[in-house]
């Protein structure tokens, strides 16, 4: 934590400080790096799970290209172990290559990724050993407020260690799922028309409780190299700020842990550090982050990416506001201000309203007795959670 990043950040900020005293001199400029090469990006991973393992091939895109990944299609991809066994990968979707299902790597075995692209270039990874990954010890959360330089919120931490002391660096990915509760779940749907009840239908599926799942988007790595014992404690894997909706009802996080060797740790660390530019002269010297993939045709061709192999250790944990707060005192406001968005409309006006606000509102309920019927109409947000997640309860949900 206290290592060079902080120093450089600090120094950078000091310069900014001085500059603020003098003049404010930060101007946006146009990027003028036309004609940059499109480089092959390789991301491959093999584990000991029995499944279809994935290697993705893409091309880097210019900076001003916000669109999408350009897949590298039609390549021959295979993984070779030290015994000479070959696992061929087939392109399942553009740029995504999969092994046959039920392929599983063996801990301690060496694997090499081989690629031949459509245009006849050949690439190979360095041989990597499928590493043993120790299990995750625990996942836990803590609500911290009034910490200097930090928002109030819940931090989720991971602890792990390798009893043998051999694994000294780890990488994590997570999938987080949070439950979404609509305040006024819609019970019926308007089919378009102006007759009641012919043009209405009761919903077949519930839209009150949904689940949204997202994957981690940051590089999460940590080494025990400079620690007294090879033990990771309080590695903060996720931070949920106070105003986040994720801890509204119930929250689950599945953490996947991978052992890293020194080269892989180095690769991920550099990748991470170089995305944190401050623009000062005290930023670390940036450069091409070369992984373990080489061109077999030319020494001067740069390939980006990494092929790695390790066991996966997984652990899932559930959290709800009561874990952190006394009932009713959660700063994570449960359902923000939906009462105000609930309108009561007389049946005589309802078709007019529904037509005018179609797509923005849902019908919560119908009350009263005909002909004095009233419709309770709410905004999408408060009446239907399927816009924010799936209403199918995930298998793991307890």
């Amino acid at each position, binding site marked *: *934590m*206290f*290592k*060079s990043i*902080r*120093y450089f950040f*600090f*120094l950078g*900020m000091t*310069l900014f400080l*001085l*500059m*603020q*005293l*003098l*003049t404010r*001199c*930060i*101007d*946006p*400029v146009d*990027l003028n*790096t036309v004609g*940059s*090469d*499109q480089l092959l990006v390789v*991301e491959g991973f093999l584990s000991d799970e029995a499944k279809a393992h994935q290697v993705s091939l893409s091309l880097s*895109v*210019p*900076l001003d*290209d916000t669109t999408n*990944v350009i897949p590298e299609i039609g390549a021959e991809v295979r993984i070779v172990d030290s015994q000479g066994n070959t696992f061929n990968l087939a392109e399942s979707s553009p740029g995504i290559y999969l092994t046959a299902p039920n392929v599983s790597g063996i801990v301690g075995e060496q694997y090499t990724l081989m690629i031949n692209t459509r245009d006849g270039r050949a690439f190979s990874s360095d041989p990597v050993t499928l590493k043993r990954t120790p299990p995750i010890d625990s996942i836990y959360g803590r609500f911290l407020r009034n910490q*200097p*330089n930090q928002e109030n919120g819940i931090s989720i931490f991971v602890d792990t260690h390798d009893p043998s002391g051999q694994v*000294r660096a780890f990488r994590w*990915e997570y999938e987080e799922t949070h439950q979404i509760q609509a305040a006024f779940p819609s019970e019926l749907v308007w089919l378009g028309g102006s007759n009641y009840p012919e043009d209405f239908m009761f919903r077949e599926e519930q839209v009150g409780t949904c689940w949204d799942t997202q*994957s981690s988007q940051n590089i999460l790595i940590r080494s025990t*190299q*400079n620690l007294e014992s090879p033990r990771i404690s309080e590695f903060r894997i996720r931070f949920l700020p106070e105003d986040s909706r994720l801890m509204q009802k119930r929250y689950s996080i599945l953490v996947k842990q991978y052992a890293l060797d*020194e*080269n892989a740790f*180095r690769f991920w660390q*550099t*990748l991470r550090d*170089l*995305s944190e530019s401050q*623009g*000062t*002269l*005290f*930023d*670390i*010297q*940036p*450069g*091409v*982050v*070369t992984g373990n993939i080489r061109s077999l045709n030319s020494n001067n061709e*740069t390939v*980006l990416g990494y092929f790695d192999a390790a066991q996966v250790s997984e652990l899932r944990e559930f959290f709800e506001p009561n874990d952190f707060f006394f009932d009713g005192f959660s700063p994570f406001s449960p359902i923000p201000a939906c009462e105000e968005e609930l309108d009561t409309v007389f049946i005589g006006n309802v078709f007019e309203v529904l037509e005018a606000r179609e797509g923005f509102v849902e019908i919560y309920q119908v009350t009263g007795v005909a002909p004095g019927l009233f419709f309770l109409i709410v905004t999408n947000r408060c009446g239907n959670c399927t816009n924010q997640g799936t209403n199918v309860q995930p298998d793991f949900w307890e």
Partner: protein
Amino acid sequence: MKNIILGFIFLQMPLILFAQSPNERFTISYQNLSLQEAIVDLEQKSNYRFYYLSEWLDSLTINARFENEPLSSILDSLLSATTLHYTFYQKRIILSQDLPISTELPPNFFGEKSDSSTSKPEEETVPLGYIFSREYKPEVKPQNNQVEQIIEIGEKAKMRAGKSATIAGYIREKDTGEPIIGASVYVDALSRGASSNIYGFYSLSLPSGSHVLKVQYTGMKTTEKSIVVYSNGKLDISLENEIVALKEVIVEADQDVNVKGVQMGRNRIDIKAMKNVPKVLGENDILKILLTLPGVQSIGEGASGFNVRGGNADQNLILINQAPIYNPSHFLGFFSVFNADAIKNAELYKSSIPVEHGSRLSSILEVQMKDGNQKKFSGQGGIGPVTGRLTLEVPLKKDQSSLIIGGRATYSDWLLNQVEDEALKDSEASFYDIVARLSHKIDDKNSLYLSGYFSNDRFRLSFDSLISYQNANLSLEWRHSYSNKLLGVFSGVYSQYGYQVGFDEIPVEAFDFDFKIREANAKAHFTYYQGKNHKLDFGVQSKYYWLDPGNVQRDGGESLILEESVQQEKGLETAFYLADNIDINPKLSLYLGLRYSLFQVIGPRTVFSYLDDAPRGLNTISDTTTYSGSNILKTYHGPEYRVSTRYAVNAKFSIKASYGRTRQYIHLLSNTVSIAPTDIWKLSDEFIAPQIGDQISLGLYHNFRANTIEASIEGYYKKLQNVLDYKVGADLVLNQFIETDVIQGRGKAYGVEFLLKKKSGKLNGWLSYTYSRTFIKLDSQFPSEQVNNGNFFPANFDKPHDITLISNYKLTRRYSLSFNFTYSTGRPITYPIGQFDFGGSRVIQYSDRNQFRIPDYIRMDIGVNIEGSHKIRKLAHSFWTISIYNLLGRRNPYSIFFVVDERTVQAFQLSVFGAPIPTVTYNFRF
């Protein structure tokens, strides 16, 4: 003591003297008495009266004990250390300088002709003594009133016709007694000359007889002295300031050293010119001036350090009073650590570095403090927008001891507190520095200097770590002249640099980190003037380094930070050197030098061994060896050749060439674009080989208009070996396995430097243009140790074109205008050129190292200097400086940085001084 001896008063004495041997015996003891006091005492005890000039007896201190001895032997003993002789004459004792007074007439005095056929004239053996100085009076009347009288040098008794004698002494400023560096002392008729060294000392070999000695120094009145040289002797010369009313310290390169000296690639910083250069934050800054010289560059405005002819910032040895300064910048690079008021002179060697200097590859910057006014109490100071400063010069004993002490401090903390912004209000940024030097002249042959320096910087951005760093050093120097020909300088130096980072905002993460480098250094340096054609410099220097490369400790009981430290490093660097300055003939001079340096890595230390066939890394450690305290782990050694030559085509035009090799055993680990105060120094060890630099250079020098305009062209080519760099993403702080992150490569640099300089007149200043390139090649059999696939790439400070104009125009004596212009090619930069998805996140793809350049740098500054009134008698002399830095307000890019927002990358340009910055500074001296 002035050795300017008036004509003999004894010439008026009766020629026939009656000697009367005294029989009386005395028992006397003298302790710490001056010679004069001793003689007064003898007068009382003996009934003899002494006749002498009191100035002859000035500075000698007597410690002697006599038991029942006759007066004659007491006098023999007392006068043995002087050039005085005594003669008894009735009840009088007459002292005479240089020559004994004969009590007998010379043979044949009354004209009796000797038999010339039998008695050979004894020109060789008979002293050509009894000569009246007026015989040597020049026939030509002196051209100005600077020739005061004829000065006799040496003892007449020792004069030999046709033999050479060496005269030596110190050249000082008349008003302050401050030694003048680089003044020319010469005899036109013989075209023979010398220049004063950093102590103001000169030594010149001349045939015996009469000469007109000229002493010249810019800003000082040219002084002519008519001298008569009898034998080896001493001549101190005081020069007067040209402008008497304004006692600015004027220090400038000797007028024609450009053409006449053998040295090349040397620049002397003119403290006076500094005053006229518009300044950005109101401080005269040596390093900023340095950057206007050809061949000196920096990475950007406000970057720490400087780069000389393609060398890294750690390849410059920066010395103040012989002691190294490890971090020359305050405020990360906005100010230099040198208080210009206390500085006499700064000299930069870019090539043909003299043999007495080593340990760094690219340059030596030698900053010399003033010795302090020996005559009267004086001081100077100033108030600028960020800093205030005061320097005092205190004579402790007139003409003998003086003290100079200077201090500077910021009031930026106070400024920060005035700012409304909350974040800035809680921030800190301050520095101060103190310099002091005590000079003591023990006697004519011995002087002692004690100098000290301390600086401290402190920064904190609200809610972040507090960083502070200090330079500290102490040096003791003893100068001893064995004779007019041999001068010895013995010095002991202690220097250290350290920084601390403290963080206590989050109790569980609170820590204190510190780094420290210490150096103890002893040197014996000798200069020997052999005849008229040789000047030998030789000596030995030893430096002992010990470093604490990093140590982190918990701050407070709640902290969970791991306490650890990187093992201490020790090393001993020793060098022997010898150089000969040879004047083969008036046109051709040669400097032949050899420095042999040796570096020993000293234990205790634990060393890892790595597999040979893989890049060094934690997974390739094959063995661990622990060495105990006295072990020498590794020794590096090698010669450093320093050769240069000058051929003077005529008095105005010369050609010089040089070759030099330098070796560097200490390195600054810096993984950032510019060096930072928190970078770590590292000694060479079994993995990190010493850096070696070879430079050849060739220059043409031409002076015009009576040496007032200097023009030069210098070209150089340089090869660097074992230049340090790092793997992409290396983390250098608290790294126990630093060798796994360091890569070493080759460098090459070449360039041409043009300089046109006008040193006097109403309009003065200089114009320089430099074309220079610097490339680095980091190749290895392992791809992770390559940069740019192992091809040459431009260094961070490779700015091919650089134009600088510094000018000053004196409107009147009180008002002057200055104008500066700077243009340079933008520095190379590594751009993001693409992006890709990896591991779920959007990642920036960078170009090859330094593949692109930021836009060119253009800046214009103006300034007005207003001197106070020219009344001689007033409390203090003052002047105002009003300047506008970056008059055009051009937003010169300092860097370009990138922010990844969602999936788009936006580039921003950052300028340091993106608007005109006006500054008013008030300076005073008294």
